């Protein structure tokens, strides 16, 4: 008699039923769909739905169904061709009203969807879409903070009547700027300067050094502070990117941190990267500065140098302008920006936070009828040819977009005018989406067309089915009835793996499908180990039932040790890998776990059930 504990039977059966349930939505597949969202973010109502339906019918685009899902209109199509036709038609006709996004809608029955059971999300290589990897300029974020400190130093020393020569950003024991150096006249009291700076720079380490020209006070950030600032920059970028991505109206976008200073953005269904990158990648910052009215801007431009305490800028039309170094308010203090119509044409109406409002109030009160410039700073890349070699450098485009006389005292509510209609809209959008603490550069960009995605799915699934069938036939041929048991176990392994991936919402990519196929191949291994062992025992003259028991028992250590070593490789890949490697590693790792369960417990339960009760068993069909 061969026995197997009842609880193990129950465990195996319940795990399998549960897995079947969770894996179920995947078997229904998904329809190509188009998602429409109103540009003003309002909900789409039934009349609008009918209008779109009528339009599609008029355009002879075949759709299966339309429905409203959380304020957005979903249209399902029988195939990708109709989907693309519909998108182009809708984009042409409803350009002003709707944002469109290619998407997929699960075909599973309503009941399953209500239960929250969804198929595995498909990776971009399978459904088409745009992948962007951004590099966050964390040095830029640190510099920004240091420049803020620089202002504090200038202001404090000026108020305390302590003379100083200059304040500059320096790198102290570091490859990147991490501190400030206040150089003093040769006879200055460095200790007094240090004491005066203790309060405003309480976070920084202050020390007195001697330079060639005289004493200086150095203020450095600690490594912890640097890291905090960098993390903050990434976090703020993440939030900003999420907001901007939401403005794009894409369905199921992913925005996540990758590594130390990267952010990846995945936009399913999006094809046109130009528009997306314009909105996501552009870094626009505003700085409000007072005009330097004591000096002549034209002369400064001719000399190519700005007087002390001022900075030389250009207006849009190329005229030079001198603005004070002190920044009144930056984009950081901006809480809202929207387009507005003014007498002078389109403009942007701005709102500041409390601190920004205070600063603005103080400045405007003291400087009525003087002029204030708005500097629009945009970062990008420029390529130049030097000695026949192309070289890229980062360029910061600084431009005074507006120089207006302060007509009244205002604090946190005011307007910028003097913009063209399109500019006003773009500027408002960029500013409203939030400020980037550190500028972003796209360093990787991958776009997959929807038809290629469809093609990849078909190829992957075909390879999976044919590979599995071949294995099934081979196993049944080689191990006969036991082979069929192994086939059942393999199938349940795929179901279990699918269920796990669906529960984890891990997106399935082409390497992921390859991982499933390999898991099938590898899951066979455990069965082979057990069966070969059973055969060995039978050859040694052991009775069939004991052979089964011994086979499972003796194969256990080999299965466990060999799978754990593979598991180690899989886990390391999971941790270190990104993109396709990670997708593959997840499937591989989970596949090893499920195959150990199904072949050790599942197949034993099945075989014990089949042969355990037979008293007169003399031969095994193995």
């Amino acid at each position, binding site marked *: 008699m061969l026995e197997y504990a009842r609880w193990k039977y129950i465990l195996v059966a319940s795990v399998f039923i549960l897995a079947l349930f969770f894996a179920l939505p995947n078997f229904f597949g998904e329809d190509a769909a188009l998602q429409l969202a109103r540009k003003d973010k309002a909900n789409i109502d039934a009349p609008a739905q009918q209008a779109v339906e009528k339009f599609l019918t008029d355009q002879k685009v075949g759709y299966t169904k339309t429905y409203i899902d959380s304020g957005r209109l979903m249209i399902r199509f029988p195939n990708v061709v109709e989907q693309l036709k519909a998108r182009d038609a809708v984009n042409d006709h409803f350009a002003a009203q709707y944002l469109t996004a290619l998407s997929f809608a699960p075909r599973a029955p309503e009941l399953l969807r209500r239960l929250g059971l969804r198929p595995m999300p498909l990776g971009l290589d399978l459904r088409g879409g745009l992948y962007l990897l951004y590099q966050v300029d964390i040095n830029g974020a640190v510099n920004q903070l240091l420049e803020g400190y620089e202002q504090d130093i200038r202001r404090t020393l000026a108020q305390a009547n302590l003379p100083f020569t200059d304040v500059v950003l320096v790198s102290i024991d570091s490859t990147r700027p991490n501190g400030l150096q206040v150089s003093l006249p040769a006879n200055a009291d460095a200790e007094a300067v240090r004491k005066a700076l203790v309060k405003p720079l309480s976070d920084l380490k202050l020390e007195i050094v001697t330079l060639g020209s005289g004493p200086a006070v150095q203020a450095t950030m600690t490594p912890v502070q640097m890291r905090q600032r960098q993390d903050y920059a990434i976090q703020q970028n993440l939030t900003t990117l999420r907001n901007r991505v939401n403005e794009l109206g894409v369905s199921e976008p992913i925005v996540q941190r990758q590594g130390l200073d990267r952010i990846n953005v995945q936009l399913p269904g999006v094809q046109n990267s*130009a528009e997306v990158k314009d909105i996501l990648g552009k870094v626009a910052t505003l700085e409000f500065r007072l005009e330097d009215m004591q000096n002549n801007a034209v002369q400064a431009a001719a000399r190519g140098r700005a007087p002390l305490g001022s900075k030389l800028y250009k207006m849009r039309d190329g005229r030079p302008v001198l603005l004070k170094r002190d920044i009144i308010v930056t984009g950081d203090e901006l809480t809202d920006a929207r387009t507005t119509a003014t007498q002078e044409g389109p403009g942007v109406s701005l709102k500041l936070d409390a601190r920004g409002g205070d600063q603005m109030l103080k400045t405007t009160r003291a400087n009525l009828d003087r002029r204030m410039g708005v500097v629009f700073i945009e970062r990008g890349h420029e*390529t130049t040819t030097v000695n026949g070699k192309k070289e890229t450098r980062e360029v910061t485009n600084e431009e005074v977009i507006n120089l207006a006389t302060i007509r009244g005292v205002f604090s946190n509510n005011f307007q910028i005018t003097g913009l063209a209609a399109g500019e006003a809209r773009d500027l408002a959008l960029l500013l409203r989406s939030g400020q980037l603490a550190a500028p972003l550069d796209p360093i990787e960009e991958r776009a997959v067309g929807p038809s290629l995605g469809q093609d990849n799915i078909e190829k992957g699934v075909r390879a999976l089915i044919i590979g599995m069938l071949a294995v099934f036939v081979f196993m049944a041929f080689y191990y006969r009835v036991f082979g069929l048991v192994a086939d059942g176990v393999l199938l349940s392994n795929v179901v279990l793996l699918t269920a796990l991936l669906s529960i984890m919402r891990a997106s399935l990519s082409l390497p992921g499908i*390859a991982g499933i196929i390999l898991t099938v191949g590898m899951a066979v291994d455990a069965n082979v180990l057990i069966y070969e062992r059973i055969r060995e025992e039978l050859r040694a003259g052991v009775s069939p039932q004991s052979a089964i028991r011994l086979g499972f028992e003796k194969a256990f*250590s*080999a299965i466990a040790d*060999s799978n754990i070593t593979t598991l180690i490789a899989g886990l390391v890949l999971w941790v270190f890998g990104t993109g396709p490697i990670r997708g593959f590693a997840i499937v591989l790792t989970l596949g090893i776990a499920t195959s150990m369960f199904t072949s050790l417990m599942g197949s034993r339960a099945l075989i014990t059930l089949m042969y355990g009760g037979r008293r007169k068993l003399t031969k095994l069909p193995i």
Partner: protein
Amino acid sequence: MATRKVWYGLSVVLMLASFASFATRGLNLGIDFTGGVSVEASFPTSANVDVIRTRLEGAGFVDPQVQNFGSSRDIAIRLPPSPAQNGAAIRAKLDQTLKSVDPGSQILRLDVVGPQVGNELKKSAIMALGFTLLLIFIYIAFRFNTWRLSLGAILAVLHDPILVLGIFSITQTSFDLAVVAAILAVIGYSLNDTVVVFDRIRERFHANRRLASALALDQSINQTLSRTIMTKVVTAIVVVALLFLGGAVLRGFSEALMIGIIAGTYSSIYISSAIALDCGLTSEHVFPTLKKAAADVLP
């Protein structure tokens, strides 16, 4: 085990050949590692690769590589990294150029990778490999009580990716991220075999601790041989399915797996245990307490 010198020799020759090709030809690294632009496009009829290349050069693309991809109507274009590569601009220019060859052409996939990404990938791939080997060394040493088996496993396992890299270098097959994943999977699988043999060695020693090491190793390998071959045949079946049906995207991945599986089977049969033997493996290393206990019983 008696013939192991022959197999060592073969492995050394193969590895030297791999290194030689590696040193002279290098790897045909994909844009994942070098940075640059990779494009897949389809044409309504057979695409003329030479015409497309000439047109691309005419449009100002520097050194474009054009080849058929999967079928005669699909092409893959690769451009070296340029300092100011901008996906949108490249797409527009490329689309225009391809449309001038055939208005029905379509860009299916466009990847733009900055050069800095590649360098980090190289680093993290090597880190991943090192970590994997270290953890596995520790695990095997822990489970089997001896570093000799760990060393055998690690050396045998290193042998496989070197051969895969060598063949990729000789055939100049494009080496991308998916191939790295395949190589790490190969390491896992090759280890799998090795460990099954080790498990049997442990069992042989357990059954008879006076068994001569060489004999124990031979017995273990022979007894697990049918399993090793059976498993490999089945894995090969699915890999063949991937190779022929998985499409061009998975081709490199499947090829690496195929080579790796063959090399892995060979190395776990002929190399891993032999190295442990040459490190002086005996039953005492696997079961140190048994010997002590046995010595106590002796008069």
